[in-house]
């Protein structure tokens, strides 16, 4: 198993190189001068100084040399220095990544905890009122854009009811010692229940705004996949043997029905980890999405590259996890044959 994982990771190397090269090239070809954008519209800047900034940042060198520097840097664990923040890119990413991961995990937990059970119920009680309602709700979940839902949630729960904060990740009054960067976890580890509650309150609205699409997808996919499985012969056999219906559905059918759901979840998680920029902006959530958007706007090449690398890595790892989980869900799928 370990060697399988290792081989998969090595196979992913060309993916990283390909992705970063394409992004590097696209950035390079997009008009917009990072130094000029850094200096903003206004104020003085002499041509000599602009040239010096460009030199100090290595932006005066040819394209391939810049890209080569970047790749060599990756192997040394150095993603370069951000033009705007003037700090190491890896540092900036580590500061922002936990926020995005935490939000994604909470949002997808909600999505799965609601999506899978309601998918199962909808399949078992097909064509009932519950099924129709679930279908309607999931349609809404897919169609409502996150930022719109986010603003509505803010108006209802922050402005009107004043139950949840409109934005942010932790209150300024909370004293939480720096730790893993995953604030829920840090609060737990430090036994700081006040901070735990505070962080949770900040998480709920953005998580609700984020989870809609995934919840709907999980529900629909569980339902259709389970319906299909319930007509399989081995399910009929289980029923014929006199197994109780609950056991037939949950033990025999559901496990197999979840295979396509797991793949879809993996891809969805990838999208959430990377594509959550709008919700992050609405809720002032200090995640990677916001950092990336700002980096693209200011043509902060090293920072954009670093973020893209993280996204590529995320997809590769999630796909790997999905593949590995098949073996657990369906023992007939084995990776040994491929080793």
């Amino acid at each position: 198993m370990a060697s399988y994982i290792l081989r998969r990771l090595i196979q992913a190397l060309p993916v990283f190189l390909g992705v970063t090269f394409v992004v590097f090239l696209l950035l390079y070809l997009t008009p917009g001068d990072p130094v000029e954008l850094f200096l903003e519209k206004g104020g003085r800047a002499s041509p000599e100084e602009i040239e010096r900034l460009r030199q100090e940042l290595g932006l005066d060198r040819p394209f391939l040399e810049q890209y080569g520097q970047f790749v060599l840097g990756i192997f040394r664990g150095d993603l370069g220095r951000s033009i705007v923040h003037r700090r190491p890119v890896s540092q900036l990413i580590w500061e922002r990544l936990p926020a995005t991961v935490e939000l994604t995990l909470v949002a997808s937990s909600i999505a799965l905890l609601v999506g899978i059970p309601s998918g199962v119920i909808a399949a078992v009680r097909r064509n009932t009122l519950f099924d129709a309602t679930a279908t309607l709700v999931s349609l809404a979940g897919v169609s409502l854009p996150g930022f719109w839902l986010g603003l509505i949630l803010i108006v209802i729960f922050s402005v009107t009811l004043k139950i949840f904060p409109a934005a942010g990740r932790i209150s300024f009054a909370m004293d939480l010692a720096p730790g893993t960067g995953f604030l829920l976890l840090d609060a737990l580890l430090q036994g700081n229940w006040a901070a735990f509650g505070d962080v949770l309150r900040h998480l709920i609205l953005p998580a609700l705004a984020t989870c809609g699409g995934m919840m709907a997808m999980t529900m629909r996919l569980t339902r259709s996949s389970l319906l299909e499985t319930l007509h399989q012969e081995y399910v009929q056999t289980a029923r014929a043997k006199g197994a109780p219906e609950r056991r037939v559905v949950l033990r025999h059918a559901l496990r197999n029905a979840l295979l396509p759901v797991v793949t879809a979840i993996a891809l969805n998680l990838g999208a959430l980890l990377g594509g959550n920029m709008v919700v992050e902006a609405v809720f002032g959530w200090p995640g990677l999405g916001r950092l990336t958007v700002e980096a693209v706007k200011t043509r902060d090449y090293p920072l954009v590259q670093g973020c893209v690398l993280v996204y590529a890595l995320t997809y590769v790892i999630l796909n790997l996890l999905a593949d590995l989980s098949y073996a657990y869900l369906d023992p007939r799928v084995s990776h040994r044959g491929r080793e």
Partner: protein
Amino acid sequence: MQRLKILGSLLTLALVFLGVGQAQTLVVGIESDIETLDPGNHRHRTTQVVLRNIFNGLVTRTADMQVVPELALSWERISETEWIFYLRPGVTWHDGAPFTAEDVKFTIDRTVKPGMIGGLTSPRKSLLDPVIDAEVLDTLTVKIITGVPFPALLTFLAFHEMVPKHYVERVGDAHFAENPIGTGPFRFVRWDKGVQIILERYENYWGGPAKVVRVVFRALPETSTRIAALRAGEIHLATWIPIDLIPEIEADPNLVVMSVRGTRSAFLEMNVTRPPFDDLLVRRAIAHAVNVDLIVQYVLGGRATPIPAVMSPDSPFYLDLPRWPYDPQLAKSLLAQAGYPKGFSVTIDCADIFKDVALVIAEMLRDVGLEAKVQVWEWGILRTKLLNREREMWVTDWGNATLDPLDIMIPKLKTGERGNYSGYSSALYDGLMHFAEWIAPTPELRKAAYQIAQALVHYEVPIISLYVAEEVYGVSRKVQGFVPRPDSWLVLHEVELRP
């Protein structure tokens, strides 16, 4: 015991819910996070707005933009290129160490000499460019030396915050940029990146302790969220309220709208290097075709001041010329005279923030027979195209926080400068800029040169000056003593919170 602990935590949580103990905390919602806590290592207005509460300059400006002493008590210009500053005694850094002339020299060196911040040069160098050195005369006296005469030194010095030599040398630039100490009214507590910056008042501040105990700047980039947080009472002050959302704040009895004329001049610019806008008659026709008053009234809700030429009315260098009168008939006949009796087609480019203004201008140009449409761009791309002279006409603006012509009249209109998108090139204008910057022996002559240059631009219309917009804040009625400033600084030392 464990149970007691949990109970205690729950109690704390409940108190936080109820907002107990927060009455003395002023919370400000800002439109972006800051970029760094090192005042010498950025070119970002919001960063300076926040940092100015931790740090002081040698001089500062009042709310009406007059330069006044801050860490320097007085100064004298002993020669064309040498200034002596007498520092305020009794000033301490937030770690208790005294502020001295050594700190001033350190700051000046760090700003103007290459490679001084972790091997990189300060990006603020060109905001103090003619300064080449500083010399410590005694503990509280320092000489600042410029390479050439620099009459605007004081105005520009107001934008540079003093940093502590002893501390930066001990902890290094990178650590300083995360854990700064300054001489300002508030000391740094914590920066939750992307979320908030927390400051606490410095009890030994030379100007007396601030009125609020704590200040929190929360980064809320989405405007609707910033306003929602204001209405929910989570923040007391919100920056950058767009004109169309003002009614939402006005409708809330707990809030007031405050505004002040800013320092950004907006322009309608034309590519003067090729037809049709290389023709003065055509440019004049456009100037007569655009009704700036109407734009100000209907697009900007009256919250802007039309300007005749480049500079803001708040600048001492402002020249009050009569604007080109709105006269579509005259515009048509000028176009006909220029050989375009049937008009021509033109695309007005802009970044998203100027879309509404550009759409209204397009409508006005259609009224005089031009086939005008609007194209909205991402600024980075548009800027490159403008400098390549690929476009025809566009709406943009230029910031002039110093209100000194040096950092607007030169970059916008001098030949080959970085903000000169229209491609304007006039030997007379360039000569006037050179004279004013390097030669003018008296402030009066310097002012005269800039004003003649403004008249020249007004006459040749390579760009049409539109307006200086107001900056709008949403403010809780609990906030007392807040004064919005043209340079958008948030000076919070005197601000109070009513319970």
